[in-house]
């Protein structure tokens, strides 16, 4: 039985992998663009998950890190033609991480609701800076982001961008998996469960809370850089408070504290609107309803709910056999 299951699993993953890799040959340009967007938001969701899902801290200001990463990529690639995109992404990610590290110190002074408000304030301040620093960011009217380049190689078509974003996402996903299964990941979870007991086991809150903020900001910052390359145009309105709220919605709807949850969340929130394109006016209502229902009835998110459902079906069929 187990053997049979394993065989099916391998086949399933193989087909999924093959579809992802050959997607540009199977689907149209627009769908490829949607897939790329989903990849970007999976990275965002991973970053938000480190804070909300693993360490138990709520940030409603992460859109600022998204913006820092995006502007870094756009400015570096505009000013220095042919600047390697990998370095631009890293610079954006590391700058975000540095600022996130500093913001993390506010999490040492406060927690819960206060921390959420503090991060809102941070996001609002950064948004105003994006809008006012016209010489660098183009002000409220925004700026054009050139295609990512690696020396003389340019990634211009949607297919090339898709593979680029897919590659970065997979690398970051593997890093994330390793991080979560390491000492650091377990320290994060210990802090989520109880700060006081974590401290008494010798886990330094100063170190791990700031670290969680820094890593989260790094993920969101890199995602922001990819977003700028993908959209080719960014403005402060892309980094407003509602965007930061949407980031949290992704991880809560998908499922807190799980990688599958991040992936599900990003797909649900960004693929469904494409399917129901006629309902643009109702999108906020639908998102709100889904969020409310998940909070009230599915505390583990949709991925947790699916997992429970699968277990139920499995135990049922086992009983029959």
């Amino acid at each position, binding site marked *: 039985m187990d053997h049979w299951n394993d065989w099916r699993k391998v086949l399933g993953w193989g087909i999924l992998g093959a579809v992802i890799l050959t997607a540009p040959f199977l689907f149209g340009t627009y769908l490829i663009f949607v897939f790329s967007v989903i990849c970007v938001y999976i990275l965002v969701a991973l970053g938000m998950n480190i804070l909300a899902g693993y360490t*138990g801290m*709520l940030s409603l200001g992460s859109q600022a890190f998204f913006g820092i990463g995006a502007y870094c990529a756009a400015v570096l690639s505009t000013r220095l033609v042919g600047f390697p995109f990998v370095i631009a992404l890293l610079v954006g990610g590391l700058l975000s991480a540095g600022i996130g590290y500093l913001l993390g110190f*506010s999490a040492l*002074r406060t927690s819960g609701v206060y921390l959420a408000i503090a991060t809102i304030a941070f996001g609002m301040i950064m948004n105003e800076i994006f809008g*006012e620093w016209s010489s660098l960011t183009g002000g409220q009217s925004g700026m054009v982001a050139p295609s990512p380049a690696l020396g003389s190689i340019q990634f211009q078509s949607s297919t090339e961008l898709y593979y680029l974003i897919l590659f970065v996402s997979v690398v970051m996903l593997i890093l994330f998996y390793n991080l979560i299964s390491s000492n650091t990941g377990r320290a994060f979870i210990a802090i989520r469960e109880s700060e*006081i007991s974590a401290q008494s086991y010798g886990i330094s809150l100063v170190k791990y809370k700031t670290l969680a903020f820094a890593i989260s900001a790094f993920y969101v910052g890199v995602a922001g850089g990819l977003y700028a390359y993908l959209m080719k145009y960014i403005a402060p309105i892309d980094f407003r408070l509602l965007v930061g709220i949407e980031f949290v919605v992704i991880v809560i709807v998908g499922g807190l504290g799980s990688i599958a949850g991040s992936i599900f969340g990003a797909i649900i929130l960004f693929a469904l609107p494409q399917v129901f394109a006629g309902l643009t006016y*109702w999108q*906020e209502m639908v998102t*709100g309803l889904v969020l409310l229902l998940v909070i*009230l009835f599915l505390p583990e998110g949709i991925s947790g709910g699916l997992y429970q459902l699968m277990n139920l079906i499995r135990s049922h069929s086992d009983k029959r056999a």
Partner: protein
Amino acid sequence: MQLLIEIIQQIIFGTVMGCIYALVATCMVLIYKGTGILNFAQGEMVVFSTFISYTLRVAFQLPYWVVFPLSFVISWFFGMLLEVLSFRRVIGKPHLNSLMACVAVGMILRNATGQIWTFDDLRMPPPFSDQVFTLPLGLVISPLFLGIISISFAIMIVFYLFLNRTRVGLSIRATAQNPTAAMLMGVPVSYVYSMCWAISASIGSIAGILISPLLVLNVGMFIIILKAIVAAVLGGIESLPGAVLGGILLGILENLIGTFLPSWIRQIFVWVILLGVIIAIPQGLWGRKKQKRV
């Protein structure tokens, strides 16, 4: 001398805005103390009630002395309905859940307001004349300003008496202090929870009628009302007098800074103050420090 008059003028304008912040911050503190939920949907609730008042005033042509109480009563039941349908289920859950439940309700309300009425700007007719008249020294003021300040203070005084002099007020205070003990003493705790939301929605509806003639009435107005969070935190999120003082202080500071410094500083100033207060004095200016127990 000219500068001094300008400052006094701005303090008057700031007090007007500050009264609205104070009213909404009072609602948030009430809900936070009573149920442990920080109501992020307060802005949307105010906007929704204000659109109802707009319909009563403009479509039904009712006079304002009918609109105020009617809108108060409608919002009362609206607040209760929201509590029964959603917020009741997140009481006592982690902050993440209760806060995001408020965000979700806010999203639904925001969209519903736009769907029912409009996503465009509306002009709310002012309840008092907004013709300014000149005082000695060249200060200007309008009946609308005086109306906003006096109604706000009247509501706050009545609310204070209600909390401290009536049986229902006593049960709200008891629940805020210790829900379990209150329940054992025979306080109907779930009824008190509903009351908190109902009162907040009602006071919010009055604040909405008062402030919307000064601004444009649209779905995006919730952002301005959200600044009441800053007022609540400034005064200490568990202190009602703190919320009032914090609100008025915020309104005045915002206006003074907006007059003498470039506008973008006015935009971030509120949030810089907020971040500073949270990091330096998390208990707020008038709050008491709390010890966490294991």
